[in-house]
C-alpha cells in the first residue's frame, strides 16, 4: 500500500469519527469506562502484590520453648534447623530479650511492668523462642511439623503461626481480582457491542459512498480500512481520556494507600504504575477491543 493511500485511509477513518460526533462520543465514553476498569485492575494488582510481598516478609512462625529447656539444647536445635533449605532465617530470642520486648510493648502500663520486674533473671517467666522465616509460604508446614515431631516436641511449649493472616489477605485480594476480572469482561463486551453498533451505523450512513468506491475500483483495504481506523480512534481517544482521569487519582491516592499498606511510596512507581506504562496498557487494550469489534462489523456488513 502506498503512503498516499494509507494516509487517505487514515483520513477517511478520522472523518468517520468526526462526522457522527455524538455517537462517537458515546462509543469513546464506553471505551473510557472499560479502560478505567482495566487500569484500576492493574493498579490494584500491583498494590496487592506489593502488600502481600511486604506482609509475607513480616510473617514468621514463633516456637516457644519450655522453661526447662536449656539454652544449650535450644542452640543445638537451632543449628539443626538452620540446615533445612526451606528456612530463610532463624532468630533466637532468649528470655531476657523477650522480657525486654514485653516491657517495651507495655511501657505505659506500670502495673504490668512492675509485676514482671518482680522476677529476677533466673526466675524469668518468659520462655526462650525462635522466630523462623521460610522462603515460601508453603514451607511453614514443614517447619511446624518438624517441631511437632517426637524429636523436638518435648522441648516445645507453644507454636504460634501467622499464616492465617496471609491466607485471609490472599483470599480478599483474590476476591477483588476476580470481581475486577468479571467487570473487565462484562464491560469489554459492552464496549465491543457499542462500537460495533456505532461503526455499523457509519457504514449504513456511508453506504452510497461505499458502493461507489467499489464500482470505481477501490481495493478492499481502501474500503474497509477507514472503519478499522474509526475503531482505533475510539481506542486512542478513550485511552488518553482514561489516563488523564486516572493518573491524578493515582497521584493523590498513592501516598494514602502506601501509608495504609505500609509500603514505601517510591516502590509503587518502580512497580510499573508509571504514566507511560499505564497509557500504553490502555492503548493496547483499547486497540484490541476496537480491532475486534470493527473487524466483526466489517466482515458482517461490508460485502465487497
Amino acid at each position, binding site marked *: 500500500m502506498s503512503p*498516499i493511500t494509507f494516509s487517505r485511509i487514515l483520513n477517511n477513518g478520522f472523518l468517520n469519527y468526526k462526522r457522527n460526533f455524538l455517537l462517537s462520543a458515546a462509543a469513546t465514553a464506553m471505551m473510557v469506562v472499560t479502560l478505567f476498569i482495566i487500569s484500576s485492575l492493574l493498579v490494584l494488582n500491583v498494590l496487592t502484590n506489593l502488600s502481600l510481598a511486604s506482609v509475607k516478609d513480616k510473617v514468621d512462625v514463633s516456637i516457644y520453648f519450655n522453661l526447662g529447656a536449656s539454652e544449650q539444647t535450644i542452640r543445638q536445635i537451632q543449628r539443626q534447623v538452620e540446615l533445612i533449605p526451606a528456612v530463610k532465617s532463624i532468630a533466637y530470642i532468649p528470655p531476657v530479650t523477650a522480657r525486654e520486648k514485653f516491657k517495651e510493648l507495655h511501657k505505659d502500663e506500670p502495673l504490668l511492668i512492675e509485676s514482671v520486674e518482680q522476677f529476677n533473671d533466673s526466675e524469668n517467666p518468659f520462655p526462650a523462642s525462635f522466630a523462623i522465616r521460610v522462603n515460601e509460604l508453603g514451607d511453614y508446614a514443614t517447619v511446624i511439623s518438624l517441631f511437632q515431631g517426637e524429636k523436638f516436641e518435648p522441648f516445645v511449649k507453644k507454636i504460634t503461626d501467622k499464616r492465617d493472616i496471609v491466607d485471609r489477605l490472599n483470599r480478599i485480594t483474590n476476591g477483588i481480582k476476580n470481581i475486577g476480572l468479571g467487570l473487565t469482561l462484562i464491560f469489554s463486551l459492552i464496549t465491543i457491542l457499542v462500537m460495533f453498533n456505532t461503526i455499523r451505523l457509519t457504514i449504513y450512513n456511508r453506504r*452510497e459512498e461505499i*458502493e461507489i468506491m467499489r464500482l*470505481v*475500483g*477501490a481495493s478492499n483495504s481502501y474500503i474497509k480500512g477507514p472503519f478499522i481506523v474509526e475503531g482505533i480512534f475510539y481506542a486512542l481517544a478513550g485511552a488518553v481520556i482514561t489516563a488523564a482521569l486516572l493518573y491524578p487519582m493515582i497521584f493523590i491516592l498513592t501516598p494514602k494507600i502506601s501509608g495504609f499498606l505500609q509500603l514505601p511510596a517510591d516502590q509503587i512507581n518502580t512497580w510499573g504504575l508509571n504514566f507511560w506504562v499505564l497509557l500504553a496498557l490502555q492503548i493496547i487494550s483499547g486497540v484490541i477491543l476496537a480491532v475486534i469489534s470493527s473487524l466483526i462489523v466489517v466482515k458482517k456488513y461490508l460485502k465487497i
Partner: protein
Amino acid sequence: MIKFDGVSKIYPKNIIALENVNLDIKQGEFISLVGRSGAGKSTLLRMITREESPSEGGVYIEDIDISRISSKDLPYLRRKIGVVFQDIKLITSRTAFENVAYAMEVGGSPVEEIEKDVSLILDLVGLAEKRDAFPSELSGGEKQRVAIARALAHRPVLFLADEPTGNLDQPNAMEIFSLLKKINEMGTTVILATHAKTLVDKIKKRVVVIERGQVVSDQEQGKYKL
C-alpha cells in the same frame, strides 16, 4: 477485446434477464445497445464490470474469463473501465470536483496529479465553472456530465455509459453524445445503452438490439429499431 460467450443471466425468482448472448467487441469500437425497458441492457453492462456474474456462459476481456479474477484483483479491472451509471450515483455531500477526484483517490493517485487531471477533465465535459457545486445545485445534464467526468478519471480503456441522456432534452443529449464520440475518438472503446433513437441513427455506428434478453440484431452502421 470483450467477448460474451453464450451468456445467460437468471435473477432470483426465475427472471431471465439475458439469454444466450454472444457478442464480440473490438478495441476502439463505439457500440449502441438499444432495446425496450427491461430488455437487459443494464444487466449486460453490469456483467462487464462483474457487478453481476453470468448464470451460464462466460465474459472474456482480452481472453481472460473475468469470473476467474480474484476479488483482490477485481479493483484493477474496474479501474480500467469507466462507468456512467443509469442512476448516476454521485456522492451528494461532495462537490463536482470532489466527486471526480474521488475516483482517482481510490486508485492512489497523488494530490497534484488529481488536481491537474480533474481540472482538465471538468474542462473537457464543459463544467469548469461548476467545479465547486454540489450535485443538488446541478441540472440533470450537468450531473450526467460530472458522472462522465468521473468515469474518465482513471483514463479507462473501456467506457460504459448506461443511458447517460435519460431525462435530457435534445440539445443536451446531443452534447453528451458528441462528448462520447470525442472520448471514442481518443481511442477508448465505448458501449452505450440508450433509448435516444434520433441520436443513435445519426452517428452511424454499430447498433446491437436486445429484446427480452436476446440479441436480435447486430449491425455495423445500424439503425435504432425495436
